[in-house]
């Protein structure tokens, strides 16, 4: 019985972890390329949840079909946000702190807008997959989770291909490592950063679509939680390492889900954070980081 529970926890940890990883990964693309702390990231995840809800109730089509639409729409939102705030922030004395506060303000505004349009009560996506559950051995996995994981993996694969195989992706990774070098090479750092910002927001919102499939209910107030998870995950994986963040997310997700099996509810929430502290103490630059510190 216990093993079944454990396997169940591992599977749902993997699924959730992949999604957490995507949140962290997109957050680290922003932080890495422009040292901007996007504290409103979680709000865009939640916005993705609501976007798929609207899509589904308006069209009745399969929720996953909303992803291209959500991706493009939020890509544009991200670009707008970039041009609105980031060039100005980068001229300041301390972009890190200034951006954290600016985007905290954005997060309050985005949260308020979500609240205004969707009210405080939690919603759920009433789409039922057929069959609704897969049974593998003694383990039950909801089809929605499998669909979410598969889509998540597809996004991760596409992102990895983009980052490692395309010229823009390579430039992006180079910019994460050294902003000055990229300017010498002749890439327009401003355009590149704007694209990166758009990409990150688009990924965040698309992850929101998947989370709406996995979590039965969501409300306008959970943005901050996702932002926090995103940051924990990127510190775990090493700042400025997009793929490290995904691994960090999976570690975090599995730890959280396994802890729910063994620990009382309130303590299980602490496990992810304890892992973070342990990881930081043992390996201060994160699992994959190379950030200098002392």
């Amino acid at each position, binding site marked *: 019985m216990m093993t079944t529970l454990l396997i169940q926890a591992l599977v749902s940890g993997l699924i959730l972890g992949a999604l957490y990883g995507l949140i962290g990964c997109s957050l680290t693309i922003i*932080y890495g390329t422009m040292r901007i702390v996007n504290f409103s990231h979680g709000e865009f995840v939640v916005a993705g949840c609501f976007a798929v809800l609207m899509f589904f109730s308006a069209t009745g089509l399969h929720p996953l079909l909303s992803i291209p639409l959500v991706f493009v729409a939020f890509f544009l939102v991200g670009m707008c946000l970039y041009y609105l705030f980031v060039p*100005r922030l980068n001229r300041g004395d301390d972009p890190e702190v*200034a951006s954290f506060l*600016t985007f905290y303000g954005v997060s309050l*505004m985005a949260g*308020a807008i979500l609240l*205004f349009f969707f009210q405080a009560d939690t919603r759920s996506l009433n789409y039922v997959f057929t069959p609704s559950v897969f049974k593998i051995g003694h383990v039950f996995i909801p089809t929605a989770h499998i669909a979410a994981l598969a889509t998540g993996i597809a996004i991760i694969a596409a992102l990895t291909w983009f980052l490692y195989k395309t010229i823009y992706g390579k430039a992006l990774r180079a910019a994460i490592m050294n902003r000055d070098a990229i300017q010498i090479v002749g890439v327009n750092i401003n355009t590149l950063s704007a694209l990166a910002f758009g990409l990150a927001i688009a990924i965040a919102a698309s992850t929101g679509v998947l989370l709406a499939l996995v979590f039965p209910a969501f409300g306008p107030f959970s943005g901050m939680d996702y932002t926090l998870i995103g940051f924990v995950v990127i510190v775990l994986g090493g700042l400025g390492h997009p793929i490290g963040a995904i691994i960090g997310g999976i570690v975090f997700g599995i730890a959280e889900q396994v802890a729910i099996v063994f620990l009382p509810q*309130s303590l299980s929430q602490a496990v992810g954070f304890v892992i973070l502290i342990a990881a930081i103490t043992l390996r201060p630059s994160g699992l994959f980081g190379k950030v200098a510190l002392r």
Partner: protein
Amino acid sequence: MSSNRLVWTRTSIWLGFLALLALGLGLLPAYGFSLAFWFYLLLWITLASGLNIMAGFTGYLPFGYVAFYGIGAYAAAVTVKMHGLPIWAGFIAAALAGVVLSLLFARTMVLRGIYFSIVSLALAVICRLLIAAMPEDVAGGSYGIALGFSNPDGAYYAMLALMLATLLTVTWLAQSRLGMALRAIRDDPDTAETVGINIGRVRLKAWVLSAVIASMTGAIEAWYTSIVDTETAFNLLVSTKAVIFAVAGGLGTVIGPVVGTVVMLIVDDLIWQHFPVLNVFLLGLVIVLLMMFLPSGIVGSLIRAKPFLRRILF
């Protein structure tokens, strides 16, 4: 010599102002003012100034500053309620708790920038969850602790005293050697160490000081409301507000956190009165505009734009 006289003049003006302020605020209860607004004004000035010691002077922004506040509130409540000791024993317990917790967390200062901030945040979350998971007869469990008595006037005076002590400490820090070492660490910790500063020890002093201010604040707030629970004592909004108020006024300045707190609380109040539906949205907008147009805060930007203002602002 001129720079010495400058420091002397502005410090005198500032201390004179503080004395008048203390007198005025001290008389409020006697004239029957409603204390709620004023108590929280003092509380936020104290927290913003305490945070400024780390964030402004030393260059470490602890998102999880609330951990010290919460642990102080709990230390006081447990001492008073569970062990039947008087409130002053609770304050001592709170101060000790602040010292112990900050020493426990001291190692996190090997981390830099956003790394440090996030880990500090994680520690605050852990503190909250651990205290909520403790048995009810130890720390009240998830329902919290009711002190069973309250003394708003007493708490108000205690808060006033703590605020004055904090502001005097920060004023001293701004011109002391310790403060100069901290500012050197803020600008470049590696270089500070290579030129001969024991950065581990110096920043630890700032850290403990900053922590004790927060833990005492938490204890006084517990006395004021006569109730503590994990959700409010460890509410992350406490950290965020302290950060925003300090930044709004100007990190690294003595007067900044005071000005920032006053302005932001008034703005917050106005928004609540006139646009109750849009309040959160507008608060967000105010923060965004502030960071866009006054990134070094009100006092910081004033000093930058008009250097002669250094004569009175610092």
